[in-house]
């Protein structure tokens, strides 16, 4: 973790997230410190209830630590207000969910553009970017389709395009292949491989070992703490770039 060649993108510093369940306090994250470096592709694994989703929510700035600090791309989030945190989400983060989570009344192109809509200063070339991304994920001919007119795999491709449109520092995926058949899941994972090869930073939560295998590094959690860290080779294209 003290490797000088790593540029930190997401830094958790003593993060604790507690939930109150009646009388009991549940620590979903317990004094958690970890750094995700630029260009790295991490799989987060662990048994159910180990704190994977909580970690991802904190990384995604939709949940706040009870204590500790979290820095995204150098920005400390501990003192940010709701608006500033939202701006961080719309500029720095890309989300891919298990159940795609597209907005039903919008078509493919509009869905891809949603994160730009919420930026304080939306880029002028937003629509062009969205078209390029749609092409990239193989949906150039479906721009005006509604989500209900697409298969699960296609919807997840739209979601990935949407996660890329704001050129995020960090892409977060929670069980992104969980709802897909194995062939389609492989296609989506191939897409993640491509993104990794381009130098994107990806954190993917999964409980499937063969999905975890494909990632560059694996982080295992247990009871809100790090159980093990397994590093793969540091050979990703973006790692040097």
């Amino acid at each position, binding site marked *: 973790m003290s490797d000088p060649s790593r540029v930190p993108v997401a830094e958790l510093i003593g993060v604790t997230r507690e939930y109150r369940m009646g009388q009991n306090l549940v620590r979903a994250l317990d004094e958690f410190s970890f750094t995700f470096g630029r260009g790295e592709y991490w799989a987060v694994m662990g048994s159910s209830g180990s704190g994977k989703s909580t970690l991802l*929510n904190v990384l*995604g700035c*939709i*949940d706040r630590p009870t204590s500790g600090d979290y820095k995204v791309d150098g920005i400390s989030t501990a003192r940010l207000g*709701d*608006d500033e945190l*939202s*701006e961080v*989400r*719309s*500029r720095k*983060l890309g*989300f891919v*969910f298990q159940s795609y*989570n*597209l*907005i*039903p*009344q*919008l078509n493919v192109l509009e869905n891809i553009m*949603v*994160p730009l*809509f*919420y*930026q304080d200063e939306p880029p002028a070339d937003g629509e062009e970017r969205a078209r390029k991304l749609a092409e990239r994920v193989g949906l150039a001919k479906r721009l005006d389709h509604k989500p209900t007119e697409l298969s699960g795999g296609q919807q997840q491709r739209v979601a990935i395009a*949407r996660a890329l449109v*704001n050129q995020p520092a960090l892409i977060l995926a929670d069980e992104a292949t969980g709802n897909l058949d194995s062939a389609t899941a492989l296609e989506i994972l191939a897409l993640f491989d491509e993104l990794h090869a381009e130098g994107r930073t990806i954190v993917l939560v999964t409980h499937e070992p063969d999905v975890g295998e494909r990632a560059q590094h694996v982080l295992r959690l247990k009871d809100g703490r790090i159980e093990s860290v397994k590093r793969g080779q540091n050979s990703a294209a973006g790692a040097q770039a």
Partner: protein
Amino acid sequence: MKHGTLARTVKLGISSLLLHKLRSLLTTLGVLFGTSSVIAMLAIGEGASEEAQEQIRQLGSRNVILRSIKPREDFATGGGQSVRVLSYGLTEEDLARIEETFPGVARVVPVREIYEEVRFSDRMLNPRVMATLPVYRDVTGRVVAEGRFITDQDEYGVANVCVLSYEAARYLFPVTSPIGEEIKIGADYYTVVGTTLDRVRQQSDLAAAGKSSAEVFIPLETGRKWYGNMQVKLRAGSREMEEVELHEIVVEVEDPANVELVANACREMLKRNHKQSDYEIVVPLELLMRAEETKRIFNIVLGSIASISLLVGGIGIMNVMLATVTERTREIGIRRALGAKRRHIVSQFLVECVVLSVGGGLLGVVLGLATPLVVEHYAEMRTIITPTAPILAFLISSGVGVLFGIYPAWRAATMDPVEALRHE
């Protein structure tokens, strides 16, 4: 919010509403009917009050009108069973008192009524036949349509001439001009020398003209000469003799500010000189003030009804929006995760409420403008649409959308994103 953003938010709101067309339409109904009924009722009320005020104004706002009225039966000086002489009403002496002693009085006009039928060829009419002075026209603001009114020469010459009101002329002479024709009042012939414009809005029912506001004017002296103070009135089989000197005295006051003063002076004078209450005093100015008060009350009542109906409409919108927010919890979570700020969520739902209520308001304005036209056509009532009514109704309906949208929008915006995303 920037220009493009607002346009997109509105577009998004409309597309969300179009997902549930029937529900959206039903939601707008409350505001729709609220708005339209306000506009329609205002138009009808305004029309009715304008009509009433015009009638009163025609009586002359500077005038005090004294009228003879038959005293109650038990006061009557009855003689035989079938023929009785009833003596009552205003007198020449009352007239002289006002004319010669009252200060602040400009002109005083006596009117005698002649209880006779009016005929021309085979057409017969029972108008109000009034023997009066030439100034009557000026004092009561009647307008000559054709020919002329009674003149001083007619008066001095005791001429057998008459002037017909528009309605009388139209009934007796449906196609030809009445000027120069000889009509019969009772058994005597009169030459028609002019017609006057109608005072109130004309009634369309011609059959009712027989006993409507048709009027015939003859010179006062002519009336005195041919029909004495004693006149026969046929009532329900029995003949009744009436002795009335003057049926009406119109007192024109010099300064409008003194109308009430003169009215009170008349009241006092008549009370002193008449043993029975065989007269009434009509003060158009007082009626006008009362009509305005009535209108004010009407407006308050209308305002309350309008507020209640818009309140109900607003609650309807709020109810549906709360359901929508719950239904779209997940969408809210997604948008928040993708970077939507609280104000984005607030404006999204607020815009939907405003689109609903403004849509309802616009449809309501259309319906509200159409209703008075229908009422005017079928119910023969006058309606007046003041330009402020639709504008006001529209603004209020938009306001209702904002007001009743705030709570659902706030609920949506303050949801916890993680919870919202977990929502099924």
